[in-house]
């Protein structure tokens, strides 16, 4: 019932006492340093193949990659649920590589939420505090405080059976946050929810993190989600880190073909010849501002302009429209240049949108062209 109503946690800053706010923003956030982490399962499955990664204190950091890339293994090593075969893990300046999970000041929001079925919501929330030996009265107050912070309302006195997916997600988040860990780990916490609720909870999660200033390590395979949420993203594949950077950098300047494909780019063309910044590909000749020395040219569909008819000019290519997908706010085009296809996205600003079969000129600015390695 209260999913829409309670989603706007951080919307009302005056809903909570000021002292509380001070406490929370003063919470010490911890940095994470991972060095040379290796993990293999059985004889042949390499989950992590030498991961070096530093996560800053108070950062919303995302581990992004396809299934089997090692992101979940890395998260489980952070939680202590998996032991690395080699390498070290330092959190807040302290080496915790060998520390068992119940001694780590790290909490996890599990993909399946993992709420205890034999306990009420209140007992679920208080579980971590109880295990750390906090007296009952204090636990009770803490639960009320977190329930207020995450706007759980009357959910606290329900039974776990009676909760919807979104409510379970919120309880799982509160159960981890209530322990005030140095680092909060989130294992695809939104993947079981439908699209609407999911984007709502993305915003909610982001606000909670900014407000608490806690270090969040978030695992997802959804690049859109990663870009919306993260301060920085690490893209993983085959147990190694491909690229680390802020969302714009990873999306706009992917370092290799894997990252580019994973971030949703399809316009990648091998460079057959180059003269300085003039690059020759199957599309024709194009000039990049800073070509770099990559072997592939990346053209992002949204950087392209489509001009009607054939127009001569620098970085102009003549193409034929083979497909048009009208999406309201924008339209996606599939264009043919000789035997090569190129995708373009054009914002719908009420101008002419070319039809299938129409000849158009594709114009691209030199600063939007990026090269990358295989």
């Amino acid at each position, binding site marked *: 019932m209260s999913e829409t109503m309670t989603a706007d946690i951080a919307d009302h800053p005056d809903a909570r006492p000021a002292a509380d706010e001070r406490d929370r923003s003063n919470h010490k956030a911890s940095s994470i340093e991972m060095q040379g982490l290796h993990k293999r399962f059985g004889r042949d499955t390499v989950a992590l193949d030498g991961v070096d990664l530093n996560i800053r204190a108070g950062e919303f950091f995302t581990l992004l990659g396809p299934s089997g890339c090692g992101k979940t293994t890395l998260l489980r090593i952070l939680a202590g*649920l998996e032991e690395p075969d080699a390498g070290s893990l330092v959190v807040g300046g302290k080496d915790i590589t060998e520390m068992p999970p119940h*001694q780590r000041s*790290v909490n996890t929001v599990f993909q399946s939420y993992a709420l205890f*079925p034999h*306990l009420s919501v209140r007992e679920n929330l208080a*579980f971590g505090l109880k295990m750390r030996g906090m007296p009952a009265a204090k636990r009770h107050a803490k639960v009320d405080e977190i329930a207020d912070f995450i706007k759980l309302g009357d959910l606290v006195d329900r039974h776990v059976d009676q909760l919807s997916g979104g409510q379970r997600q919120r309880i799982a988040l509160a159960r981890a946050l209530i322990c005030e860990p140095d680092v909060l780990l989130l294992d695809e916490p939104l993947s079981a929810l439908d699209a609407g609720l999911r984007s709502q909870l993305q915003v909610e999660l982001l606000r909670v993190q900014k407000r608490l200033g806690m270090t969040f390590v978030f695992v997802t395979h959804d690049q859109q989600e990663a870009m919306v949420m993260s301060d920085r993203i690490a893209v993983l594949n085959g147990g190694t880190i491909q690229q680390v950077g802020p969302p714009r950098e990873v999306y706009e300047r992917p370092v290799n073909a894997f990252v580019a494909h994973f971030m949703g780019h399809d316009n990648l063309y091998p460079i057959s010849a180059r003269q300085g910044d003039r690059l020759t590909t199957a599309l024709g000749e194009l000039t990049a501002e800073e070509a770099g020395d990559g072997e592939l040219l990346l053209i992002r569909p949204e950087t392209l302009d489509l001009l009607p008819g054939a127009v001569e000019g620098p970085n102009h290519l003549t193409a034929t429209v083979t497909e048009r997908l009208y999406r309201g706010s924008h339209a996606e085009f599939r264009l043919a240049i000789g035997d090569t296809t190129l995708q373009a996205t054009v914002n719908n600003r009420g101008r002419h949108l070319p039809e299938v079969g129409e000849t158009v000129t594709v114009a691209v600015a030199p600063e939007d062209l990026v090269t990358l390695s295989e």
Partner: protein
Amino acid sequence: MRKRTLARGLAGIWWVTLFFLYVPLFVIVLFSFNSANSTAVFENFSLVWYRRLFGNEQIIDAFGHSLVLAVSSSIVALVIGCLIGYGMYRHRHRKLGWLIVLIYLPIVLPDIVFGISEMAFFVQIHAWTGLLEPGLGTMIIAHVTFQIPFVALIVYSRFVGLDPTLFEAAKDLYASPVKRVVHFMVPTIKPALISAFFLSFTLSIDDFVISFFTAGPESATLPIYIWSAIKKGVTPEINAIATLMIGAVAIAAIFSMLFNRQGRR
């Protein structure tokens, strides 16, 4: 038309089955309240046989033995079976097929073979060491061995039905190994434990063959008493004992079912 005939035929089998299952029980219950010393003609309703029963010291003793045996063997079987069930769950990814067959063997082994072998074993041990004299002690050991597989199976299936990340959530939320047992595992499988206890209890109360071979001269249980009394003919007194046993076992079975269902919710 033919389909309906078939359906009627199957329904007929159902009623015949129920008839043979429950009519004898009903007759026993009915005649336990008979005022006459007859198992053929019902005269008047009376509790005379129950009064007689509670005045018979042998029966009271046998009843006591049955109860002590059932309760203590069920408790021991619960503890051991629970550990085995958890172990089976914990190591379910390993190839433990043969080990599990070993644990389940007593279920399929004929009771009489099991009873005789236990007896022979206890006699040998007693002859060598002087320990394990036939009596309640040997009966408890024998009962525990056939109760364990049932307990282990119930506990195992409860654990398998749980989300495996719950175990990780408990670790993640600062529960040490001991606290995980006390605050997570035992409360989570509590319905299964209660169910397993009542099942063990009914199995023990029920058992005649294995008890018969492992009992000592002073440890006759109700079934053993009935067996020896019946050699002199079925008396309404026996009917009264049987009625009480039906009641006790039915109650335990109902509890077992209720708690098992609650656990699977």
